[in-house]
């Protein structure tokens, strides 16, 4: 096993190690229990392997080491990936997944895209709880073992999967009962319990590779301002695993390397996007009301040309809930901030085709203004070939029709913060 020390420090690129200007970021000292937890889990994992309870899936090939928010040293693999795909990305933003594979090819990285991989099934846990904890961890451990048999590194594309695998690692090390159950399920399938030494998200890998990406970049982002949002499940609650200083820095780091003006110091930085697992399906009123808080802060405080996030759920929520803000009963709000994933930004800068590789046509908020401003070439007549015979939607009393789309009823309802005193407002 070799260590690529060069990758641990960026070439002259300043990363946010200082407290944020707003003063709301806690210091590293705020998370002593997270640091303690991470070290305790590592030690116990080694003990469990010695006792023959499980095997550790160690990193194959080169790796880099970074400090996480509470000060824990985390290993990030740099080659031989077993790409654990994201159902959200592959369904809604396939261009982000395609961009990753394209980048691996450009950098000559060895990867494998398995068909013996299931979703992490996190939705069935976080959204509903219908899947019990042992079943959830069983499904995750099945994926771990599949990767182990291929002798590769477990490379997670989704943020919720990242949190779920991190938590599963925690639970399986801590609970003897859970471990016994999961081992039983795996034995029944002819598999064994394997636990990775480090849980790595693909945005960690992209961060580690940022200098190599920047070297190959044909276009720099020096003309654009990019607002950054981190998926809640990248760091909140699992702080010990999130690379950063006073707050996560993996997306900031990549954007700095590409020359962008990075704006992550807006007042709603810590806010959730509104995705909420359940809410995006059955309570979109809450989702779009919460997304508004986030978007308004980004638009008014940063004047960003782009939002960049490492979470598939957040990316979709922030992208797809912009147009409907025109229906706000307290006054129409116009948002036109495109949303991209760091891998799409990286591939675009490296010269990937915006439609064939980064597939920005899947975004609901047009990305072309950002491409124009950044000087990235794109086919200006791309949409001409997509013709739909659209009939005008009938307008009538009580109907809400915007841009020829009928959004009457719950499709355009919004929530008011519950402590707003309506009587005072008259």
């Amino acid at each position, binding site marked *: 096993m070799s260590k690529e020390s060069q990758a641990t420090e960026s070439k002259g690129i300043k990363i946010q190690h200082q407290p944020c200007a707003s003063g709301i970021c806690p210091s590293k000292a705020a998370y002593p229990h997270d640091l303690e937890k991470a070290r305790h889990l590592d030690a116990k994992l080694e003990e469990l392997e010695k006792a023959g309870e499980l095997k550790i899936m160690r990193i194959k090939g080169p790796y880099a080491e970074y400090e996480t928010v509470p000060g824990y040293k985390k290993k990030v693999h740099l080659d031989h990936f077993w790409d654990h*795909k994201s*159902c959200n990305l*592959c*369904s*809604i933003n*396939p*261009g982000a*997944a*395609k961009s990753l*594979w394209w980048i691996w090819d450009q950098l000559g990285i060895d*990867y*494998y895209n398995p*068909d*013996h*991989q*299931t*979703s992490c099934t996190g939705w*069935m846990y976080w959204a*509903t*709880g*219908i*899947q*019990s*904890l*042992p*079943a959830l961890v*069983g499904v995750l451990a*099945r994926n771990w073992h*599949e990767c182990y048999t291929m002798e590769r590194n477990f490379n997670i594309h989704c943020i919720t999967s990242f949190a779920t695998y991190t938590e599963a690692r925690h639970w399986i090390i801590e609970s003897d009962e*859970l471990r016994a159950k999961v081992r039983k*399920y795996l034995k029944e*399938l002819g598999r064994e319990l394997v636990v990775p030494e480090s849980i790595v998200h693909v945005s960690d890998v992209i961060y580690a590779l940022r200098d190599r990406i920047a070297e190959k970049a044909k276009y720099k982002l020096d003309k654009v301002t990019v607002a950054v949002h981190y998926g*809640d499940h990248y760091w*909140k*609650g699992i702080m010990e695993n999130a690379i950063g200083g006073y707050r996560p820095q993996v997306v900031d780091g990549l954007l700095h390397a590409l020359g962008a003006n990075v704006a992550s110091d807006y007042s709603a930085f810590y*806010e*959730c996007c509104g995705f*909420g*697992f359940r*809410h995006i399906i*059955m309570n*979109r009123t*809450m989702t779009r*009301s*919460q997304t508004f*808080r986030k978007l308004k802060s980004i638009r008014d405080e940063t004047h960003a040309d782009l939002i960049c996030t490492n979470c598939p759920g957040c990316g979709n929520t922030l992208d*797809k*809930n*912009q*147009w*409907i803000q025109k229906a706000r009963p307290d006054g129409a709000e116009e948002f036109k901030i495109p949303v991209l994933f760091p891998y799409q930004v990286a591939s675009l800068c490296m010269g990937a085709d915006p439609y064939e590789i980064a597939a920005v046509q899947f975004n609901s*908020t047009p990305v072309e203004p950002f491409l124009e401003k950044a000087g990235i070439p794109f086919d200006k007549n791309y949409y001409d070939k*997509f013709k739909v015979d*659209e009939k005008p939607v009938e307008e009538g009393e009580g109907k809400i029709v915007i*841009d020829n*789309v009928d959004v009457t009823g719950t*499709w355009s309802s919004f*929530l*008011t913060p*519950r402590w707003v005193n309506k009587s005072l407002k008259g």
Partner: protein
Amino acid sequence: MPKGWKEWEEEVVKHGPKEGPLYKEVSDDFRFKHAVKNCMRCGTCTSICPAAHFNEYNPRDVMRIMMDGNDQEILDLMREKIYACAQCHYCIVRCPRGNQPAIAVMILRDISHNLGLSEEAMKPFTRVLKCIMMTGTQISPDMIQGDFFPDWGPKTKKMGNFIPELRKGLGSKPQGYDGLKGVDVLAGVESAWRVNPKTVHELQKIWQMDGSLERLKAASPFLAELVEEELEEYEEDKDE
């Protein structure tokens, strides 16, 4: 063990509210000691909670109830309030005492399934459930259509008509697909990617061994039956 709302309401009355069987179920979960430490009720969690911003929900109250162990209040939480939580985990970041209100909510959701109290909560999820149980992926591209999501605007509506065509070729690349022999994993709109049927059966089998399939029966008997049939067929094929 009682099952259903009516039975549990009677049980709570019979036992009295303090530290009854419901609290025992909750506090016996091994996550409980990590989630509920010693809340001093400062309210930091509630002040930053997006769910509390818009709903009659309050993580500080969740922590109080978890520490008081009042069965009647736990039952009330399970009825609706625990589903307001967006699982953003901001409360975990902010708590000065290292409590985890969001994980406490997860314990309550989990246990409500065992106690037969989750039927209503599962109703909107039948489609996602079907997708995961039958294809091995949770979301499929054909879920994203303008008719289902008019609030996602005119571009989503228009481009929704061309999704199968747009996805062609995005997932095929000779390098890195050696095991798949150049198969376009992203082609098709019924699952996020093509999962090998053997792997889907392994997932179903885990649900069956664990008892989550029994929980599925309460939420969607038809789907549970479908999964059981598939599992039987698979076992028969394997024997042959």
